[in-house]
């Protein structure tokens, strides 16, 4: 029997706002790596967002964020001591330094934004159709995951993130709609 790997579920309302999100933590893969850097300067170029993201320098680490410095968890670009991480890394006397990189979990704000982004992309896809009477995006395929979308007659979207081998999440998404109707609405 084929085991379906589900990563997460999102529900977006007809205005594009995220109203529900669920991460199936058991399936969330871990992409952490730790490396000790012996001397200044390190060979990585960082991009500053809400966190320090590796932009250039190490193929394995691109896109990952700094989550721990010398064993201490960091939540942004600042060390627990208050110093900026980049300033700490610029000082040769602080070496060797042990950095842990991982793909950080999305923040609530980021999820809301992604829900809204998909809502728009769904509509644009319907508009760009080369043939008449197309729906919006029902299935989006990336290299490492698939996103399935079921839109109800009232404009509510149920999104499902699965592994890339899943052919259709529609049956499951319809079931979610049933459960939503029974428990969330009534």
């Amino acid at each position, binding site marked *: 029997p084929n085991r379906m790997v589900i*990563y*997460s579920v999102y529900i977006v309302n007809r205005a594009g706002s995220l109203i529900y999100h669920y991460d199936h933590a058991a*399936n*969330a*893969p871990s*992409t952490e790596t730790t490396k000790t850097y012996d001397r200044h300067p390190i060979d990585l170029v960082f991009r500053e967002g809400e966190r320090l993201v590796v932009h250039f320098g190490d193929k394995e680490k*691109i*896109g*990952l964020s700094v989550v721990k410095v010398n064993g201490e968890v960091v939540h942004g670009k600042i060390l627990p001591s208050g110093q900026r991480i980049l300033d700490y890394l610029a000082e040769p006397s602080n070496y060797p330094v042990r950095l842990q990189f991982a*793909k950080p979990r*999305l923040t609530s704000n*980021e999820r809301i934004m*992604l829900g809204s*982004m*998909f809502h*728009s*992309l769904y509509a*644009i*896809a*319907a*508009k*760009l*159709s*080369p*043939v*008449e*009477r*197309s*729906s*919006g*995006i*029902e*299935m*989006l*395929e*990336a*290299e*490492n*995951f698939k*996103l399935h979308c079921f839109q109800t007659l009232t404009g509510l979207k149920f999104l499902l*993130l699965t592994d890339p081998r899943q052919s259709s999440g529609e049956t499951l998404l319809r079931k979610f709609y049933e459960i939503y109707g029974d428990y969330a609405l009534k």
Partner: protein
Amino acid sequence: FLSVEMTIYNLYIFDCNGTCLFYREWKRTKHMQMSNDEEMKLVYGMLHSLQSFVTRMSPVDAKDRFVSYRTSAYQLNFYETPTGLKFVLNTDLNVGDVLEILRDIHGKIYVDCVVRNPLSKQGEPIDSNLFSSQLNSFLSNLKIF
């Protein structure tokens, strides 16, 4: 032996700056109420957003790649070369592996007819009859699996 015919609706080719280098339609029946320029910008903008969306949404990989999407009526297939050249092929839903087709359009037709053409200018729309005819014959030969 069952042969399934794949229908190709249209093809867009963009360079790394967003300039539309090539557009051709075959079986497209619905057009939008906007000029060609506006449509190209919309498609390019949507692709850019889709790539950003996929990278951020990916539960597994920090540098995930957008491959394709399906609606009830068509499938949009995407391929980007390491040089930033973007190929977008809209087909019907009876498709097999479109990635190979897009790779061939780039590797076998674009490279031979455009890159190796001393008269073609980078950043400008493709002006080669050879490219158009090679593309047409390549796609016609594909339609029946």
